[in-house]
């Protein structure tokens, strides 16, 4: 009885709040409380803990249950969630976070700085992919009081880099459930306990995950929704049908077939757009193994880039959703994009001239040499691009043999065995070049590490630029260093970024307050409601 009264009270608080405080820039509709929001989940995850696994598939679910120290606001600037404020020392080696008071875990225990220190040192630094890199110089986290966490680094770390990265890599897990256990086997990994607006209820393997409103949530009056359901649908066409029949209301991160987005965009019931997913841009790549004699010559690499008509590929294979890439930093990254044009426009004559100049004349049957191409199938467009590359290069006299493997096979063939001449897949940009992108170019990446520099290519200049930029505290100088980095790697071309694309989401228009910040699908949906 007490619970019902409390819920009723919360609901009335919510409606009053919304009426009293009409938020600027948003539709002036009155939010309705209640209802169930159903997401499409394209593939099941092994672990639902974002402090152990950094991937969009994990975030779609776990970001509603767990909370990060910071998130991004509508303009893409870091805003406090579990942290209320932060301050960096002048030398850039110490960052102090003040934590939110009165936050409790879903099991009733209070959230404190001990949770932050434990998660940072034991989970992020040891297990979290990308987190291990970001926190490699983290030496200690001091906890002078329950609401203060002081991060101490061995090297200066730019605050902007840290905060931007923490939106994804800053989720806090409960120390009292993880301490002293084998964290990878912890039952809380699939029955998570967090501080977020929704509490985990049920996970039916192969079918669905359910979370319900957290009545003790620290943002008073939130969330609006009663329940969130994630439905596992692996077949893309079946997922489109589920969206059309209303079985799911949101499918995001390009989980439907490209042809279906084209069709659904004409249906007035849905919003098909990249709004609210801008923080995760991605590229189609062409990766060169420069251990191969012909590819060691930069003229051959450039010739290959010139031989491929990227605008044609985008228009005819990607339904126009994308543009030719300008380099490793996408144009959507306002803080770092240097503003250059695509470096290698389509030019068959130039391509042929470069190949001739490099000394590879056409031989028998017009073939100069043969290369093996391994597609790394992140998406349905990867094998299409592989075929398009094969046909384009045939025209300039390079024969390409495609070796089709599933993704686990392709990763080990390319990054562990180096058994490729060309590879094509996706590069995902995660908001800051130091988080996701420079590993593709920095030398010294251990053999077998996927999506890193395994090309047999090395440049002292580029290595130095990468290292300097990672610890440069002045944002203006940092941007200039990255501009220099882009110019250099575009010239040397160890890998060629073919397209620049955004993920696509499909959402029912009855869902309100959705995609209102650049990483919305990986955020908490506390203010989302359904106009039923």
């Amino acid at each position, binding site marked *: 009885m007490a619970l019902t009264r409390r819920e009723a009270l919360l609901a009335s608080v919510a409606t009053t709040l919304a009426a009293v405080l009409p938020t600027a820039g948003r539709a002036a509709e009155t939010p309705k409380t209640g209802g169930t929001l159903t997401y499409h989940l394209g593939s099941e995850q092994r672990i639902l803990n974002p402090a152990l*696994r950094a991937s969009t598939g994990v975030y779609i679910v776990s970001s509603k249950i767990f909370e990060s120290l910071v998130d991004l606001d509508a303009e893409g600037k870091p805003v406090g969630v579990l942290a209320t404020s932060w301050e960096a020392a002048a030398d850039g080696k110490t960052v102090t976070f003040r934590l939110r008071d009165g936050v409790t875990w879903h099991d009733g225990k209070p959230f404190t700085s001990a949770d932050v220190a434990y998660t940072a040192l034991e989970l992020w630094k040891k297990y979290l992919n990308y987190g291990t890199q970001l926190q490699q110089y983290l030496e200690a986290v001091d906890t002078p009081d329950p609401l203060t966490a002081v991060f101490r680094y061995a090297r200066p770390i730019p605050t902007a880099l840290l905060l931007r990265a923490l939106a994804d890599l800053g989720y806090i897990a409960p120390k009292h459930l993880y301490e002293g256990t084998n964290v990878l086997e912890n039952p809380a990994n699939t029955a998570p306990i967090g501080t977020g607006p929704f509490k985990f209820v049920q996970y039916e393997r192969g079918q669905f995950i359910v979370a319900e409103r957290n009545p003790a949530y620290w943002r008073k009056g939130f969330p609006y929704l009663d329940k969130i359901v994630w439905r596992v649908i692996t077949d893309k066409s079946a997922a489109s049908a589920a969206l059309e*029949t209303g079985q799911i209301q949101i499918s995001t991160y390009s989980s439907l077939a490209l042809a279906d987005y084209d069709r659904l965009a004409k249906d007035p019931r849905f919003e098909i757009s990249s709004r609210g997913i801008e923080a995760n841009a991605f590229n189609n790549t062409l990766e060169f193994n420069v251990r191969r004699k012909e590819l060691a010559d930069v003229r051959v690499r450039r010739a290959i880039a010139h031989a491929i008509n990227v605008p044609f590929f985008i228009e005819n294979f990607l339904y126009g959703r994308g543009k030719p890439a300008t380099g490793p930093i996408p144009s959507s990254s306002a803080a770092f994009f240097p503003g250059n044009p695509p470096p290698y426009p389509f030019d068959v004559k130039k391509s042929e001239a470069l190949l001739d100049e490099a000394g590879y004349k056409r031989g028998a049957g017009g073939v100069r040499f043969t290369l093996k191409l391994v597609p790394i199938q992140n998406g349905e467009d990867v094998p299409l691009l592989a075929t398009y590359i094969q046909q384009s290069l045939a025209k300039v006299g390079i024969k390409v043999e495609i070796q089709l493997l599933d993704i*686990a096979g392709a990763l080990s063939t390319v990054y562990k065995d180096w058994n490729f001449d060309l590879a094509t897949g996706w590069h995902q940009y995660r908001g800051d070049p130091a988080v996701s992108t420079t590993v593709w170019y920095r030398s010294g990446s251990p053999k077998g590490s996927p999506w890193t520099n395994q090309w047999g290519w090395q440049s002292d200049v580029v290595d130095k630029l990468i290292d300097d930029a990672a610890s440069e505290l002045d944002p203006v100088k940092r941007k200039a260093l990255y501009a220099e980095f882009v110019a250099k790697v575009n010239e040397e071309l160890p890998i060629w970024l073919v397209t620049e694309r955004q993920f696509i989401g499909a959402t029912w228009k009855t869902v309100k307050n959705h995609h209102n910040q650049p990483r919305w699908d990986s955020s908490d949906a506390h203010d989302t409601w359904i106009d039923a």
Partner: protein
Amino acid sequence: MRIVLLALRRLAASLPTLLVLLVGLFVLLQFAPGDTVDALMAQMGGGDPAAADELRRFYGLDLSVPVRLGHYLWRLVQLDLGYSAIYGKPVAEVIVERLPPTLLLMGASLAFAFAGGLVLGVFAARKVGRWPDTVLSTLGLIFYATPSFWFGLMGIVLFAVDLGWVPAGGYEEIAGGKTGLARVLDVAWHLALPTLTLALIFLATYLRIMRASMLEVMTLDFVRTARAKGLSGMAVLTRHVLRNALLPMVTLIGLQAGTMLGGSVVVESVFALPGLGRLAYESVVQRDLNTLLGIVFVSALLVIVVNFLVDLLYARLDPRIVS
């Protein structure tokens, strides 16, 4: 007693097959490039090699192949199927969760295909060479030749998206809290379309076999004798012809029990059903060896059981087989 002996003999004969199957699959999968940690890295979008090594230790992949095979077989003897890498819990538990949807889908489609094939086959045989026979045979061939994913998707587009008669997918209403009869009806409503899809594809085979076997039996001497005896057409058909014509149909059930488990991968994916076929596919993609071997083990057991039942049925239909 005789039945028990037969069962034991069958079991003894199938044990070596089972062993060869499991060891063969284990070895075969070693040839596939990439392991479950590579698959996990793909799912996570990358990670550093130290973490990957840590994970390989966690999944026991740092040991040599013979040692792992030895461990696996030793655990199997103790009836322990191991730990599923994808789901992070014991394989036996994962498989038990998936069995009801698979068995329901498989059993229902098999029954439907068998019954439909029987009735339509008899009908076609009686009208042999005339238009109903031609129409049935052509339709049967069309269903047989249509890929199941296309068939399923078209069913979804027509009956779920356009007409709204059935749900587009899923096993039951999510967290609907239904119990008893309401839940049974809910599951049946969700499974109607996938069952029909799977059954129609298998129907053609049963129809053809039944028709051919009816035609063959109808020309045999004992049928003429029965007619000469003055039995009615119906009595000849049910008591003499049908009983003999059913034997090849029963054989086919035994053979298809295995196929239908595999054949349901596509149907399960299209209809988002949590069945064994999809689990097997997922285990291959994720290189989850324990789960895959577990599924093979359970499927093999299932096929052995079904074939045993088929043998019993043979004996009942044709006493000559036992004596």
